[in-house]
């Protein structure tokens, strides 16, 4: 009887609590519902297309998975093989690091030079800015990569131009010593995005600093390396991090120019291209997932290292 009474009490209590809980949810919905509805497309995208696949790939990296049969748990075998028994991984790493080390400094230097030229108050600045930015919009596209292939082919436009001066150019794309350079040049050509950011940074430097320096007798060159460069370091840092991450992730140009092979002799085998080959050429999804997570780790380590060293060379005003 006592149990029945207790039960009745519990049921009674629950019956009283439910409307309170419902009321609270209704109140939250009434207050924030519209906001969440606006957020919903992004939430779907984030969970469905970013976080979900990322977590899935992390799981798959510990499996053997060929897209047909169910994933088979293999533990750290994929990672062990990458580290110990995969010469192509080492080749891809070497090519990718070479590409990062060459393309990022060249691209940033070129972008800074153009930004300095545009900062000198040229007429029609907005037109030039748009024109120079255009390659950044197009550069990652398949069409431009195809065009690049035509330009640098053995009988391409570059060699035709060189032939006018009696120079017999090599087949830039099919020569292992030069092929990486065609990709570096393509990367530098897409200088628009960092250039716009450099230009904005240059505009932020107060003119009276240059005036004070000119009263002190500083030459233009001294003004550049004593004032412009140090004050631009936050922008240089930002551009360097963004461009380096982009370079690590570069895929389309190498895929199109090498016809998806990474050749000749693996000279354009970017890390992402090798990852693609493993995933969609050899159908080793688990192995490719492990490669992807190693790339994430490399980018994260590089970024962390950049931030740690930035305190020694990046000058923030406040």
């Amino acid at each position: 009887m006592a149990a029945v009474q207790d039960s009745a009490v519990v049921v009674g209590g629950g019956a009283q609590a439910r409307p309170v809980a419902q009321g609270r949810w209704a109140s939250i919905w009434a207050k924030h519902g519209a906001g969440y509805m606006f957020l919903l497309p992004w939430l779907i995208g984030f969970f469905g297309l970013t976080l979900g696949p990322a977590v899935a790939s992390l799981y798959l990296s510990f499996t053997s998975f060929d897209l047909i049969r169910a994933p088979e748990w293999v533990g750290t075998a994929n990672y062990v093989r990458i580290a110990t028994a995969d010469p192509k991984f080492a080749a891809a790493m070497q090519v990718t690091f070479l590409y990062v080390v060459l393309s990022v400094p060249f691209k940033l230097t070129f972008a800074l030079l153009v930004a300095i030229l545009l900062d000198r108050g040229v007429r029609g600045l907005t037109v030039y800015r748009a024109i120079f930015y255009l390659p950044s919009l197009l550069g990652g596209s398949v069409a431009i990569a195809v065009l690049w292939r035509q330009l640098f082919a053995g009988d391409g436009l570059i060699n035709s131009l060189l032939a006018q001066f009696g120079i017999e150019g090599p087949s830039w794309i099919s020569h292992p010593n030069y092929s990486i350079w065609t990709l570096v040049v393509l990367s530098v050509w897409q200088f628009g995005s960092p250039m716009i950011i450099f230009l904005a940074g240059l505009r932020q430097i107060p003119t009276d600093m240059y005036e004070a320096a000119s009263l002190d007798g500083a030459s233009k060159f001294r003004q550049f390396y004593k004032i412009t460069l140090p004050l631009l370091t936050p922008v240089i840092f930002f551009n360097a991090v963004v461009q380096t991450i982009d370079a690590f992730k570069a895929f389309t140009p190498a895929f199109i120019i090498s016809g998806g092979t990474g050749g000749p002799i693996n000279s354009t085998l970017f890390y992402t291209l090798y990852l693609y080959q493993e995933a969609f050429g050899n159908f080793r999804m688990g192995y490719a997932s492990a490669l992807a997570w190693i790339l994430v780790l490399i980018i994260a380590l590089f970024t962390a290292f950049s931030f740690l060293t930035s305190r020694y060379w990046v000058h923030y005003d406040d």
Partner: protein
Amino acid sequence: MATSVVLQKVEKRYGALDVIHGIDLTIDPGEFAVFVGPSGCGKSTLLRMIAGLEEITGGTLMLDNDRMNEVAPAKRGIAMVFQSYALYPHMSVYKNLAFGLETAGYRKAEIEPKVRRAAEILQIEKLLDRKPKALSGGQRQRVAIGRAIVREPRIFLFDEPLSNLDAELRVQMRVEISRLHRDLGNTMIYVTHDQVEAMTMADKIVVLNSGRIEQVGAPLDLYNHPVNRFVAGFIGSPKMNFLKARIAAVGEAETAIQVCGGTIRLPRALKGAAPEQEVTFGIRPEHLSAHEDGIALAPINVELVENLGGETMLYGITPDGQHITVALEGQQKVERGTNLAVHFDPSRCHVFGADGKAM
């Protein structure tokens, strides 16, 4: 050995726009000259032309009898303190002070004593290792002045250097800059829109308006004998009262003026005065008195009383409806709505013709 500055018919044009109209000015060696005027009058442009930061479109700039028009800024022997201080944010105070000397090729052993001496003069020795962002506004200002001092220039230029400081610090820095001028003895040119700074610091004030010099003179000359209504209104705080008036009669040694609904008799002849002529009667608020001495102006109806402790400001209306300000010494008990008879010393009043010129 201080330097003279001479401007001869100096002009500045931006395309078709004339901003400086043929200025003639002489600043004597060791003088503290202040360019003062409202925003856009061309005072900063004129300073920048002397510095070499703006090209001189016409006329001649002479420093110690040497033409400077084509000489590069760094070769003019000039140091400038900017309104924004223009300190290099990525350099320590020491590096900021040393930058000019390093640029000029001095050795480290030569630079250090110069920097230390400037720091000592400005009492910033303890700040030498700090970056500008770790300094207060006043400290930044001192560093900016220090950067000018270390170069041992012939001429110091100051472009509204105190305008970013709060009122208390402004007064303090004003005193320090004056002391610096006294100690160093260099020629200094100082730009400000604050007439109090001009009055307190200058040996010579240059009042500019729309790219022209309105008057040049010692502070009290400008205060006591403004040549026109613009200078009379710009120099002095609180501002001079300007009252509509009419010449009633003109005598050999006396002029009768109708003002504030009454007639006053000034015991002097006014240049170019004629009966019935419309004029402006000018009298400074501090030259009006509630005591019965001097000439009586029509009684004013007091609308507002401000007790500032050291003085009492009265804002009132004259019988003919014109606004007038009276500054009485000390703490006066005056009720709002009082009809107060005010008097003035006739030697202290000013009369301006229709063209604004003093009569």
